């Protein structure tokens, strides 16, 4: 009988534990996960309140309003985007579903701060019910500079602050007018240029020679004699069943790593990768965060990373020079440049700085977060020095800014869709980096990504008080 009572007690504790788990999980749902879950674009409950609550505003870093709600004739509100196309891929739209910040911050934009008082005021004084606003990290001056420079060339520009991961500009073309998405929906959704796709975060491209920064890093890490490792470049080299050419078959002569980086010598980096081996290069690719999900607020596509220790030599040497099957987003390349600028520390990119209450008070603020340490500060410094060389003596000359040391790496990526893509990644000032950038031009063929990058960098440095 006593045994039985002990068993009954144990069963009680077991079941009670189950119920306490329920309580704990319910608490986690409503206190911790609330925003992520209910902010989902599928949540019809947030759309449900649309016409009684005035959706909050979206502002840039200086407080310029880039999305707001205007009372419509009769009841309800219309959403308006004063900067129209210029910030289209940032704000997204809130009409035929939601994208961009409109989707990511849907919850905050529709949340009433001090709900009880607002409702009281709504009844007694007929005050409006106003949702929270969000202030972004984006600077509209840099954003428009990037937009104007990009013009009507397909591509993307991503500008970041290396030390924090703040996104200062996120420009992509083709774009759309968020004011007219509903009216032009049929045309937009099936358009062959996919204007609704944010090429900055969702476009996947071969990284081309910008990837050589990663190959170089692997060399520095795994080859003790990398400083004395040289290659006699004849303009082409044969590996297994693959012939690697340098750009326009130009021979670079005897080059070391610095020289190869400046001249963007494919033969050197292919030989270097052959020496490193596929397994180790794959490890470095993992360490620089290519496989990691970056946790950015807006929709993004993960990079395509296929190299592993079983890959063939052809695959290895192609990957090493940024061809082959590797695919990256411009956002990731900006993160990579930022990490090199930030002594190897890769920060989580973010675009929403803080929430602003209707009474002007400051709500939840995003805290910069470390994503991963891609290499040691010493290794980052070596890479930086080589990247300065690229802009000063090498292929990246067009990116130079007068009076400022720019570090960077150019890229020309062969691809299946037509002419080569043009890339530039870099940061400035090299001594104390304030801005990092990635520019991609689809099917551009000539190296004008560097020129755009230089001008955007100059505009950004002016804005950042340089």
């Amino acid at each position, binding site marked *: 009988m006593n045994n*039985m009572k002990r*068993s*009954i007690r*144990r069963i009680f504790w077991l*079941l009670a534990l189950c*119920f306490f788990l*329920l309580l704990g999980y319910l608490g986690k*749902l409503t206190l911790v996960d609330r925003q992520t879950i209910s902010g989902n674009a599928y949540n019809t409950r947030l759309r449900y309140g649309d016409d009684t609550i005035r959706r909050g505003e979206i502002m840039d870093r200086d407080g310029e309003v880039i999305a707001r709600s205007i009372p419509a004739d009769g009841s309800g509100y219309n959403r308006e985007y004063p900067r129209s196309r210029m910030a289209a891929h940032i704000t997204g739209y809130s009409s035929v579903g939601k994208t961009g910040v409109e989707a990511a911050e849907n919850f905050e934009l529709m949340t009433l701060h001090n709900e009880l008082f607002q*409702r009281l005021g709504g009844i007694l004084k007929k005050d409006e019910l106003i949702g929270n606003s969000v202030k972004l990290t984006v600077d509209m001056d840099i954003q428009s500079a990037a937009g104007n420079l990009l013009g009507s060339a397909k591509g993307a520009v991503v500008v970041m602050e290396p030390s924090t991961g703040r996104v200062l500009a996120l420009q992509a073309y083709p774009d759309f007018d968020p004011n007219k998405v509903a009216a032009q929906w049929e045309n937009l959704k099936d358009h062959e240029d996919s204007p609704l796709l944010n090429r900055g975060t969702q476009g996947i491209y071969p990284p081309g020679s910008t990837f050589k920064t990663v190959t170089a890093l692997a060399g520095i890490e795994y080859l003790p004699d990398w400083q004395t490792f040289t290659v006699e470049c004849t303009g082409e080299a044969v590996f297994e069943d693959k012939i690697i050419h340098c750009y326009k078959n130009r021979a670079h002569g005897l080059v070391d790593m610095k020289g190869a980086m400046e001249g963007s010598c494919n033969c050197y980096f292919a030989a270097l990768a052959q020496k490193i081996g596929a397994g180790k290069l794959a490890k470095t690719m993992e360490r620089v965060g290519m496989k990691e999900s970056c946790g950015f607020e807006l929709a993004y596509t993960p990079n395509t990373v296929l190299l592993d220790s079983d890959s063939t030599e052809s695959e290895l040497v192609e990957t090493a020079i940024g061809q082959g099957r590797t695919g990256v987003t411009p956002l990731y390349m900006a993160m990579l440049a930022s990490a090199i600028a930030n002594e190897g520390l890769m920060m989580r990119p973010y675009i929403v700085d803080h929430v602003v209450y209707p009474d002007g008070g400051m709500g939840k603020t995003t805290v910069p977060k470390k994503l991963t340490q891609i290499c040691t500060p010493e290794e980052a410094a070596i890479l930086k020095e080589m990247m300065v060389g690229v802009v000063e003596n090498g292929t990246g000359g067009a990116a130079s800014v007068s009076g400022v040391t720019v570090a960077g790496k150019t890229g020309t990526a062969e691809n299946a869709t037509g002419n080569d893509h043009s890339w530039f990644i870099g940061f400035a000032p090299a001594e104390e980096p304030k801005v990092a950038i990635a520019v991609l031009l689809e099917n551009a063929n000539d190296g004008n990504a560097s020129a755009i990058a230089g001008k955007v960098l100059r505009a950004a440095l002016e804005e950042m008080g340089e």
Partner: protein
Amino acid sequence: MFDLLLMLSRYVFLFYIVLFLWQGIVYIAYEQGGYLGSPYRAISIQRSLIVLMHVTAFLILAYNRETHLFGMQPLVFGAVSFVFLLAAVALLDRFYYEGCPLVWTGMLFLMDLSLIMLQRLSPALAQRQLLWMGIGLAGMLVLPFFFRLIPRFEVFEWAYIILCYGLLICTRFFGVEKGGSTNWLAFGPESFRITFQPSEIAKFLFIFYLASVFRKRLNWRSFFTTGILSAGLVLLLVLQKDLGGALIFFMTYMVMLYIATSNELLFLLGMGAASGAAMLAYKLFSHVRVRVAAWQNPWADIDFGGYQIVNALFAITTWGVFGSGLTKGMPKSIPVVESDMIFAAVCEEFGAAFGAGVIAIFIMLLYRGVRIALDCGRRYYAILAAGVTAMLSFQAFLILGGSIKLIPLTGVTLPFVSYGGSSVLVSLMMMGLLQWVCVYCEQHNRQEIEQEPILNGAEGGGFDE
């Protein structure tokens, strides 16, 4: 103005449930020797709180925003159910004089919540639910007479299990499909069709069967027979795609076996076997895989498999701790909200804090049930009480956990709250049984009837050997 009152009503409801739970603590403290207040007063406060909640909720439900008048139907239904609640309190007190009052108040609170929520979701279902509650109440009131008439109902163990099998197998021939499982029976003409789940009745009989077998000291032979017979029931339920039911039967068996034998090894072995069986079921049945996938990542398949759970999560999280206020949410966007997902609807409109209170009431009922089992001198009744408590608690855990995505969702009802005729009926009968054990033990405690477990065959009426 009404909107403002609605907003305030959210705090009022939360206040009701918090005070209700506190009075429960006051009562339990008194029993344990502490004194936080008079236990009689605590129970009467709890009863008043149920009445207050009922009145508040039905006033909100009856108010019509457009006409600024109170609707007739909700008021009448509110009044009828109000009378039902009062009658239930009075009658239960009378028929189970020495029963535990805390169990009654907890149960009535949940039943009232059920009526409120169903009236809000679908008045027609609320009326049916009240009808079933009435039938259940009548059944509960008859129960003590029935047990007094047949004092040694443990001798019918074979009858119980045969009936169990009969009930489960008959759905294979006469069953109608509903919600993906063919475990329903339908009666009556098309106009007023009554459908019920025989497996619910089988639950009741199954507990009787197990308690009857386990009241004796187990020998290997009876251990294997019960094991195989119970496994057969579970298998039948799995074949009918009633996974929740299968889990409940299995857990009840394990718990009662453990209580009867106090053998941890057997319990762990059983759990291990169950895990193996679950893996096998995952490999064999596609509907199991669908359920698990919808649990692991409902976001990947929002439009189809994950739709129900994702909408439940939206309902729970969107309005936060205090909820949207009664009638202000969108619980109807959750599929099967009136039975499986009713907890999500409660969390949506009354708030997650209120939902936590509902869970706490279940903990209170579990505690009381276990207390009754512990205080019971007679082994057979102790096992019965423990079995009933464990089955109801586990069922509540299954569906509560399923609707908040703690565990994969299985379609079972939340006892007392979900809509479901046979479920309400059987849950009420189980509570009646539990209370009857309580009454029986109170009455016999002085006589010190301490029946030591009797060796096999001695008491079994000759069925065992």
